[in-house]
């Protein structure tokens, strides 16, 4: 049972309120915000590690990201993955989800031999939730996203996916591509032994040539969608602070609620 887990390094979501747009260059200012493995991708890795405990085999991490993502992949190896391959090339920069899925699919096909591909249901930074479905299509495998439950009796999979106010139960067969939701499990902590073990696990980088993709099919050039301007959301609010003892503040809030017409 060989499982691939696709992960993406993202700026730590706990710091997103610090991200600003430079008023002239219109570029993102995100200095000092640490990178983390996308939270839902950690749930995908946890699901893979649990399946390996149940059915044996190996867990391979892959990522399409700039070269400094090696550090995050090492973290995934420390969590328990067996090996990691980073798809990194200047030609991959600026990719939309389809161009990203194209690189991931090419890399995963080249490695070969997988029974299951897992990834987070959505990323914290762009949050499209496209990758599980688009990767599934490009692999030519069945796929489902937003999984909250996964039960494997090789080769049959019983799966639960989220819908608004409910869920759907599915049955499928390996191989599949699945997007794992945050609430599906609690990712394990990294142990000191894990950190030590990660040093001796293989971590490889492949570029455009290794993946044998046509130039122009990846990155911004290979993306059907193109980014335009960035802008901050308009809030247009000027805060009036209500201060004093808790009882005074409570009284002031009552006055605001009455003025707003929700408390007669």
């Amino acid at each position: 049972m060989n499982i691939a887990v696709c992960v993406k390094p993202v700026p730590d979501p706990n710091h997103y309120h610090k991200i600003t747009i430079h008023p002239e260059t219109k570029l993102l200012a995100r200095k000092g915000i640490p990178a983390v493995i996308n939270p839902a991708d950690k749930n995908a890795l946890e699901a893979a590690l649990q399946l390996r405990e149940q059915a044996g085999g190996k867990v391979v991490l892959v990522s399409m990201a700039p070269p400094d993502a090696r550090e995050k992949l090492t973290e995934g190896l420390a969590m328990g993955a067996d090996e990691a391959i980073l798809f990194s090339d200047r030609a991959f920069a600026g990719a939309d989800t389809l161009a990203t899925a194209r690189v991931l699919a090419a890399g995963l096909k080249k490695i070969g031999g997988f029974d299951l591909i897992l990834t987070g249901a959505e990323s914290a930074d762009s949050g499209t939730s496209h990758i599980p479905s688009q990767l599934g299509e490009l692999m030519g495998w069945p796929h489902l996203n937003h999984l909250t439950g996964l039960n494997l009796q090789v080769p049959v999979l019983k799966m639960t996916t989220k819908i608004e106010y409910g869920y759907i139960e599915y049955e499928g067969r390996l191989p599949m591509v699945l997007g794992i939701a945050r609430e599906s499990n609690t990712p394990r902590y990294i142990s000191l032994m894990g950190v030590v073990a990660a040093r001796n696990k293989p971590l490889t980088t492949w570029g455009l040539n290794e993946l044998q993709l046509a130039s122009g099919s990846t990155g911004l050039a290979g993306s059907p969608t193109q980014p335009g301007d960035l802008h901050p959301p308009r809030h247009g609010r000027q805060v009036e602070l209500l201060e004093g003892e808790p009882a005074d503040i409570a009284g002031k809030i009552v006055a605001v609620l009455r003025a707003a017409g929700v408390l007669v």
Partner: protein
Amino acid sequence: MSEQLGAVWVIAETSGSKLAAVSLELLGKARELAAYKEGAFTAAVLMGSAIASLAEELIAHGADRVFLLDDPRLAPYQNDLHALALTDLIKNHRPETVLFGASYRGSELSATVAAKLETGLAAHCVDLRIDHRGELVQVVPAFGGTVLGDIFCPVSRPRMASVKPGIFPQPARDAGRTGEVIKITAALPRDYQSPLKALRVFRRQPPALPLEKAPTVVAGGWGVGAEGWHLLEELAGELGGAVGCTRPALDEGWASSEDALIGTSGKTVRPQVYLGIGISGAAHHTAGMKDSGVVININLDPGAPVFGVSDYGAVGDAKKILPLLLEKIREHKGEINALRKPDTPLTRRGKN
């Protein structure tokens, strides 16, 4: 079949025997977008089994045509079957723009179809408009809504977008509108064997007052604490509102279910009054409430980011203020009730 000049399609989503609100919201937007091109029309795609009666609803809300794919294999929703049928329909009719609700199903279906067609898809849009060049500008949130980005799809067609529920107003129902219902008989290849099987669809009864429709939202975050959470429910009850929460409060298990989550991975709310308690103001939460009417937040830290999206910022310990606030509201309501004569109903009072 011929290319449908500038046609704007909405992929309708059904929930049980009803249309999802987002599908109707999108029809209003579709009409607006179609109006930019001479002769362009709007169409809705309705997929499922025994759903023909919903076609009239779609027309009454703005669809000029309804493609009706009524096939027992299309119910319940199953990603691969719906994607196959829809891809085929798009290839045959070539719309210019295709809009989906960014529900769980809509997000999955749109991403699948975009990959099959190798075309562009903008996710979870918060605005759609036509710019001076006639290009569709698709505005998407990033970094939990801290940043909005314009997305274009200059070459590939159709250009596709998913839009979060509650972003666009629902157009009024016009029973006098007329439209054409086009029945698609062979929606799926007869011999197609699905690798998947949807065994069961479970739906909870949505709450009597869904969060996104409540006039007042009382939202709680980390600062409320486990022991104070029930006070939020009481407060919402007194104000005739509903309780919402942030991701940390949900992860702690204080909030009853994910239905209460407000933000990029939850609901978008725009109540008359939003009262936030113990919420720091992480962008992925504020993205879901920033368009509310009056915004009040209670937070211990006067520098909390949440005050940047508030009209009123109460600086103090939520654990102390919350019980006092509840007490004062009850006191106030008690006074009003005492003033009210027994058999004269209180008429709605205006602002003081």
